[in-house]
């Protein structure tokens, strides 16, 4: 990956010095040298600070929304970031010409702590960027591994056990909303949880309110989820948030035909924004 990193650096420098972009978003080295964090480079001479290696666990795409406005912004994008870009465009949060995508085929990232491949990378469906202005490095194979194993496991449980599973999960949730802030589908200006007047979300700290938050957030993003798994990664309590996302993704595919968030397939508007008169009928 070293050479890829070099190319990224020199391309970033070139783009910045040519003034084609006002900033380049990638990764930099954190406090400890095995920790990476999203880095926004604005001066060509800082391009050398960009790194790209197996420890780039964060999904940087959402940084785009903070830095657009003053000129084009370049984003070092793997499969997941590129899908996020498509997602932003579909949600009118971004226009294609506001972003310059430096595509990087991604072999999958490794948890520096355990040295294992991240769960979300092991389940990754799209390793190569689906949209890019230039591609750095050669495309990697797309194994398209089965990603619903966890869903199947939970589904196999009895109703009571499933309820217990989610109670335990939401019982641990501290409602820090990190999952929301990390999610590239969460682009509302004011989240429902903050609308005290309407009172969607209660203030009490208990499993009920946590469940309400968790499930409604899941429903809000389910039909547009790009399966980047950033919510799960961002969760300080390490909750398996992707279970319920994957469950929705799977059901939507099953019920309304194949659909992938992030405009992978040109399947028209998001499944819950459209309908077919011959959708299956189960409410007669």
């Amino acid at each position, binding site marked *: 990956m070293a050479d890829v990193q070099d190319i990224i650096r020199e391309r970033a420098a070139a783009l910045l010095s040519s003034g084609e972009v006002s900033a380049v978003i990638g990764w930099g080295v954190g406090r400890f040298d095995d920790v990476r964090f999203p880095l926004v480079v604005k001066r060509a001479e800082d391009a050398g600070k960009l790194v790209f290696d197996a420890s780039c666990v964060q999904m940087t795409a959402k940084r785009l929304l903070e830095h657009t406005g003053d000129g084009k912004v370049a984003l070092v994008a793997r499969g997941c970031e590129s899908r996020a870009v498509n997602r932003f465009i579909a949600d009118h*949060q971004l226009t294609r010409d506001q972003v310059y995508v430096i595509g990087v085929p991604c072999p999958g990232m490794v948890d520096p702590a355990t040295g294992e491949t991240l769960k979300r990378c092991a389940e990754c469906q799209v390793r190569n960027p689906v949209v890019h202005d230039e591609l750095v490095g050669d495309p990697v194979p797309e194994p398209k591994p089965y990603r619903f194993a966890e869903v199947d496991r939970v589904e196999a449980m009895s109703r009571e056990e499933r309820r217990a599973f989610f109670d335990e999960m939401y019982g641990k949730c501290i409602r820090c909303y990190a999952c929301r802030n990390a999610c590239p589908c969460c682009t509302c200006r*004011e989240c*429902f949880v903050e*609308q005290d007047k309407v009172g969607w979300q209660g203030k009490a700290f208990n499993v009920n309110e946590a469940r309400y938050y968790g499930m409604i957030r899941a429903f809000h993003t389910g039909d547009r989820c790009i399966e980047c798994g950033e919510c799960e990664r961002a969760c300080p309590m390490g909750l398996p948030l992707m279970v319920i996302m994957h469950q929705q993704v799977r059901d939507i595919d099953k019920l309304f035909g194949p659909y992938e968030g992030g405009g992978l397939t040109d399947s028209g508007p998001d499944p819950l924004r459209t309908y077919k008169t011959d959708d299956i009928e189960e409410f007669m």
Partner: protein
Amino acid sequence: MSRIGVFVCHCGTNIAGTVDVEAVADAARQMPNVAYAGTNKYMCSAQGQDYIVDIIKEHNLDRVVIASCSPRMHERLFRKVLAEKTDLNPYLLEVANIREQCSWVHKDKQIGTPKAINLVAMAVAKADCDTQLFTHEIPVTKRALIIGGGIAGIQAALDIADAGFPVTIVERKTTIGGKMPMLDKTFPTLDCSACISTPKMSECEAHPLIEIKTLSEVEKVEGYIGNFDVTIREKAKYIDYDKCTGCGMCETKCPQKKIPSEFNQGMSTRTAVYKPFPQAVPSKPTIDADHCRMLTEGKCGVCAKVCPTGAIDYQDVDRVTTERYGAIVLATGYELIDWTRLYGEYGGGRYADVISGLQFERLVNASGPTEGHILRPSDGTEPKTMVIVKCVGSRDPHKGVPYCSRACCMYGAKHAHQFMDKVPGGKCFVFYMDVRTPGKNYDEFYMNTLHEGARYIRGRISKITRRSDGKLVCLGEDTLSGNVVEVDADMVVLETAMVPPEGAKKLAQTVNTQLGPEGFFTEAHPKLRPVETNTGGLYLAGTAQGPKDIPDTVAQAGAAAAKVIGLLCKQSIESNPMVAHVDDSKCSGCGACVDICPYSAVTLVEKTLRENSRKVTRTVAQVNEGLCQGCGACTVACRPGASDLLGFNDEGIMREVEAYATR
């Protein structure tokens, strides 16, 4: 902190019989924000209304909950009371349905009373969140546009214009009149079709309030009920109608004479500068640009030379105008299915003597290519044996359309009658699937045809072949006797299906309304709103809505006209205040609402807003209150609830839910 008044109605014993209304009132007094609760024998009675009004003033209430019959019954009335007799906004009212959905469905007070209390509690909770709503007046442009100048369009135009409103007819062909003037006689009375339709045409032309735009099409429609901005393209006619006197000199001199006449269904020819038929309206010719030598090859110009008034203008161009109309009537009519593409077994159009019903109409018509003598197109001899095939294309899901075209049974019978009438000793066989003659004097007419000797055979023709002696051999089955039948016919008439005119789909998108699966325009309600569409101010007349015969078409045109007149009579219409409303500060402009709105009432617009004391320009959704019907589908699609439905706002429903759940 609102002051809510709760008024519980006895409705005689209707409610009081199974609900302890006093207990309900007592319970209501304990509910949050309730400043007063009382009961009355009949809230809807004049005395009951006064009681409400007095209490409101006495306790200066700012919200009202009425526990009575269904809101579908009296909500309007009570709103009126608030609007007229108090200074409360009529939309600060909630009705708790404790009759239809409580007292009438439960037997005793033990059950009825607590439920009624619950329902009141819900209403009280919602009332607390109600906001003042204001209907605003939408001015009505007192003009009507009619798309399509067939008999439906003509009838509607005359009715509306006679009521004193200006009307514009947009017709895509060179004359209004549509199909009716082509027909010979009309069932069941057999009066001459042209004789009854052409006077109406000239009436249109003469009417001071009717403007006719021929060779014209609607290109764009913007706005909503009362105020449609319509862009119309009037194609070049290459003749200055102000100068043209309609003398017809150009037609007689035009060297390009071999063009098949549309009006005579290709059974005669016309010139390049032409009037489709003598009584055409406007009664002035147009130049057919595809065939005129001057316009195609740049040489000729005979018509310009002979025109006494110099009306010919080869440089003429399309005229595009945009005007405002209050209402639009779709009277786009029908076309006949192209059987030659579909029915190879009938010769696929290779046999000149296998003709469509409309061609037969021209053949028997005195003004037709044969002066009304029934003669075979192939050799001009008189056919002695004629076969009529019904349901060609109709009720044939495999090759044609699944539906019944409704008129064919009757004009089929008419054709049989006319043939036997004009050809003494002529034999006529009618192959049919069913005979459907619902309508005044229809079945009598059919029976008459039978008595005149038409041979009705229940079954389809499976094949038509042409023998060297010119006979058309028709193979078919008589399903009643189970025998194979073979008829040597001289002429075969196919009664073909009515299908939507091409361009219907495009027009539907232009005017923003729906088509049914068959491609005809969909009415708002099949029984109760047959001439309205789901788009306000847009009405249907005639076969644009589905296959019909002339009487039904004219009747429906009249109905559509009545609706239009009813609308145009108003100075202005009250907008429905219960519409979606977008909170710019919450809206991220994701466009989910735009995708979902069935009325295209939501659009994304660039807005400059003040946000934390600085100007920002963002894309946000905007609701067109004229188009929005208040279904609320967008409010759910909107994740942050930036789009909310006035009158049924999120907060109100949430309080209502909690009021019941936590009680």
